[in-house]
């Protein structure tokens, strides 16, 4: 019951916001309050979470479980619950949405609808993580696409509508592939059920490798588009770059996790045989994503696009680990468990750090209406707080010890090495590249002589930022930027972060440091479930 409240409270508040039409400021604070209550409830759930001795999650020891009949004809039910895989991600969702709520207190453009959409999206995300029924999972999974589409298209900048459409089409293709795969699981099982727990206990299609492989292909395709893995990642840079800052933060921090979470929750336990057979392909795709994401990020001249590509890189690590966890012949159970733990840890860590990075890039957009590297420089002087926060997030993202990224990546590599040594070594070079690109970004943005965008420059130089964008859009943005100018001339003032901006970003970074220094709190939750996944996939 508590879990149901947690899932549906945001959408209820959204309905109230739309129906009651409170003043803009009140709407913003209602959103913050609702998100804070959500986080408190999730915190309470975490506090009371006690799966009991010996129970592992995934197939038993699921807490806060509710199982109601929904469509009995196809045995689809409202089955939700929490275990060591979903709890960290539920908490991550709560934290990131609260950060975005605080950040958006300054939103001027239809703040009511904006808040309502985010609350709707929060319900969809929480529901996806809590779902233990394939159809329920799909319902929430699809709703996230709808919510995010309107956020990007309505509140984005640049070529927002085109990017939003691209996002919708790509991920909708993925979700339909996922649906086809789910139907395959349903028809392939002996019990004819959509229940994930029942399917994981009694995996379908175990003795038909071709059908199992095809169903895994469909599910994998659906999740890979969402994750996104190379070569299905092309929607991501556009969607991220043109989304508003909180939209990017949620897109990267939470929505991408829906894909990787689906691999751990659905593909691995329910199709163990096929996952083992194709584990090497997953590993290779993961490594290609790692390297591709890193090198393409290195080539970007736009901060937000760069961060977007590092997401491809980071999700590649997750897939490398999950693939390695399926290499049953080559690695022992302990290594495969470590890899799985690392993958889940990486999801949380990436959510916090990339969420923070995208919000920080929103500061630049707010001040100067551009993300181009060559238009910013020496920001450490006028904006020391921004510089410090950006540096912490960047170092965390490149995997510096002491931050959560290190714990995650260390476990991923340690767990993957026995099974896939060559791939792991290749992926470690990806770390070097991403270290290089983050250092380069810090150098360009924070050090050197002060450079801030000028309105005149924004007009003349728009080709350099992104050749695809129409110049009309840029002229409009430049006109808005002039509002920020000092009376003396053409220079944008670089105000440091303050108020809501600080309150949104700093907790994310603090959490990342806490998880980097005291990983036990999170590991204790993840490990039993990860062990269960590693055992289930070895069947």
């Amino acid at each position: 019951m508590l879990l149901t409240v947690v899932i549906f409270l945001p959408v209820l508040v959204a309905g109230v916001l739309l129906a009651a039409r409170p003043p803009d400021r009140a709407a913003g604070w209602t959103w913050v309050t609702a998100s804070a209550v959500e986080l408190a409830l999730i915190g309470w759930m975490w506090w009371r979470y006690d799966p009991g001795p010996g129970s592992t999650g995934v197939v038993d020891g699921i807490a806060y479980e509710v199982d109601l009949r929904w469509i009995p004809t196809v045995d689809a039910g409202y089955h939700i619950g929490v275990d060591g895989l979903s709890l960290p991600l539920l908490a991550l969702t709560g934290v990131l949405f609260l950060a975005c709520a605080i950040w958006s207190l300054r939103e001027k453009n239809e703040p009511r609808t904006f808040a309502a959409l985010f609350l709707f999206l929060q319900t969809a995300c929480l529901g996806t993580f809590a779902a233990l029924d394939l159809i329920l999972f799909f319902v929430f999974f699809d709703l996230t696409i709808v919510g995010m589409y309107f956020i990007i298209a309505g509140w984005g900048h640049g070529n927002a509508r085109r990017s939003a459409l691209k996002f919708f089409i790509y991920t909708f293709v993925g979700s339909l592939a996922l649906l086809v795969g789910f139907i395959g699981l349903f028809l392939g099982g002996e019990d004819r059920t959509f229940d994930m727990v029942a399917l994981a206990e009694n995996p379908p299609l175990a003795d038909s490798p071709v059908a199992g492989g095809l169903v895994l292909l469909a599910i994998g395709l659906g999740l890979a588009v969402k994750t996104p893995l190379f070569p299905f990642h092309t929607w991501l840079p556009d969607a991220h770059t043109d989304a508003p800052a909180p939209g990017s933060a949620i897109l990267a921090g939470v929505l991408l996790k829906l894909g990787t979470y689906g691999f751990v929750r659905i593909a691995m336990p329910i199709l163990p045989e096929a996952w083992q057979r194709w584990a090497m392909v997953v590993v290779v795709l993961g490594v290609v994503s790692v390297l591709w994401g890193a090198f393409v990020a290195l080539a970007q001249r736009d901060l937000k696009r760069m961060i977007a590509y590092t997401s491809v890189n980071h999700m590649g690590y997750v897939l490398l680990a999950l693939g390695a966890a399926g290499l049953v012949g080559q690695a022992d159970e302990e290594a495969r468990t470590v890899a799985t733990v690392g993958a889940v840890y990486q999801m949380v860590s990436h959510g916090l750090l990339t969420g923070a990075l995208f919000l920080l890039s929103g500061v630049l957009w707010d001040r100067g209406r551009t993300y181009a590297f060559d238009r910013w420089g020496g920001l450490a002087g006028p904006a020391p707080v921004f510089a410090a926060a950006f540096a912490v997030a960047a170092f965390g993202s490149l995997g510096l010890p002491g931050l959560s990224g290190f714990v995650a990546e260390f476990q991923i590599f340690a767990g993957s090495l026995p099974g896939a040594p060559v791939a792991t070594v290749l992926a470690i070079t990806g770390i070097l590249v991403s270290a290089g690109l983050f250092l380069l970004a810090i150098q360009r943005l924070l050090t050197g002589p002060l450079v801030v965008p000028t309105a005149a420059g924004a007009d003349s130089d728009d080709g350099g930022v992104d050749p695809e964008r129409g110049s009309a859009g840029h002229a409009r943005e430049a006109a808005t930027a002039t509002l920020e100018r000092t009376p003396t001339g053409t220079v944008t003032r670089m105000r440091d972060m303050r108020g809501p901006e600080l309150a949104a970003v700093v907790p994310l970074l603090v959490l990342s440091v806490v998880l980097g220094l005291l990983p036990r709190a999170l590991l204790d939750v993840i490990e039993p479930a990860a062990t269960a996944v590693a055992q289930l996939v070895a069947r």
Partner: protein
Amino acid sequence: MSGDPGAEFLALLPEFLLLVGAVGGLLLGLWTPQHRQYRVRAVAVVACLASAVTAAIALTGPAMTVFEGTWAVDTVTGIVRIVVALAVAVVVVLSASAVRGHPRETEAYVLMLLGAVGTIALAASTDMLLLMAAFLLASFPLYALAGFAKDARGVEATLKYYLMGALSGVLMMIGIAALVLGGGSTNYAELAALLPDASPALTALGVIGVLAGVAFKAGAVPVHFWVPDVTAGTSPAMAAYITTIPKIGAVAAAFRLLAEPFAAVPLDVPLLVAVIAGASMTLGNLAAFNQTEVLRLLAYSTVSQVGYLFMVVAVATRTDLDLPALAVYLAAYAVTNLGAFAAVAVVPGARTIGEWATAVGRRRWLVVSLIVCLLGLVGTPPTAVFVGKLAVFTATWDGGLTWLVVLAAVNTVASLFYYLRWIAACALGAPLAAAPVSGGGDGARAAVVAAQQSVRTPAVVLHSAAAVSLLLGIGAGLWLSVALPA
């Protein structure tokens, strides 16, 4: 059973109530002044509701055939009875704003009720001759409805509709003649036993002819050419009727044909139907891509929706899930499609997407309901069509037509493009209002349209349809337990 006329009469009570509504409405209309014609409307709605209630009660009874095995009273009939009766009630309410004060207002409602009787007969008949009669009964009221406004576009559309109908009717008669010639009976049950031994050529001719007639009523490829012209040529409420009601009966009739007389013929009839389904969804979607007129867009969308409905027909009796899938998708389609047409009826003057968006402007709830209905047609959860698509895909795959499932999934993605075009125009028009959204030609007309007052009843219908679409999606289990009592 056939010996007891009282019981047979009771079995047809839902149809009888519709007929009473039609005749009673006609008589009442004769003696009612022009400005009080809402009484006739009330009679029609009450008749529909009563018919639906009695149909729901009849569903709990055992399946049987009456009138010497020509009329089946079973689950399929029951589902069609309920859905058609409720849908007609909605259309009667929806059309009120368009035909209010019209000199032939009563006739519109009466024709709708008669068309409903014909549609149910189409779904219930288990005899080729009754099927033909039902085809005609479900056709003629609709010709009159299509040309109700008597304007140039309407007359042209009616003529096209009538000619296509006549052609399909003739094909159907030839088909029935061939089946009678080959099998020696018109009864479905007897044909099912006799056709396997009949001449394959005659059987093939018969199957194709009969399916052509049914496909015409359903608006499926290749006899769909009337759909866009009729839809765009008539008023939104009539278009809602013509694209929703007869399809329900036609799909059910096709389902029954494949389940009984065509089940054992030495031809791959399921494959033929699967090809019709695939062609309908694909061509409907492709044709919808470039439509800027809302009614034409919806017309092609209904052609593609019929494709999904025919998927179930193709696997009739080949899977346990055929009936649930049919029950869910028929109801879901009716609700959602009526909602979409109600959205058009809210601003009757708006022809194109741009005009519609401008006219609705910032009335947020209208846009929200439209989004629910259009995304519902795409099949986004948790709307009713999503559950329908889930059931249809599952049933089709279970019936062995995996390629059709993949084709349908691809088509679902394709359909997103044109629905999203409409959604984007009205949901996102406001934040980007500074930029010129479309070409200048639209501007003047849009202003005129915006100045018109939009109509209230259709707005209520639109909101209700959106709500029911969501509720039916979430409560799909409940609807199935009503439609298919175990």
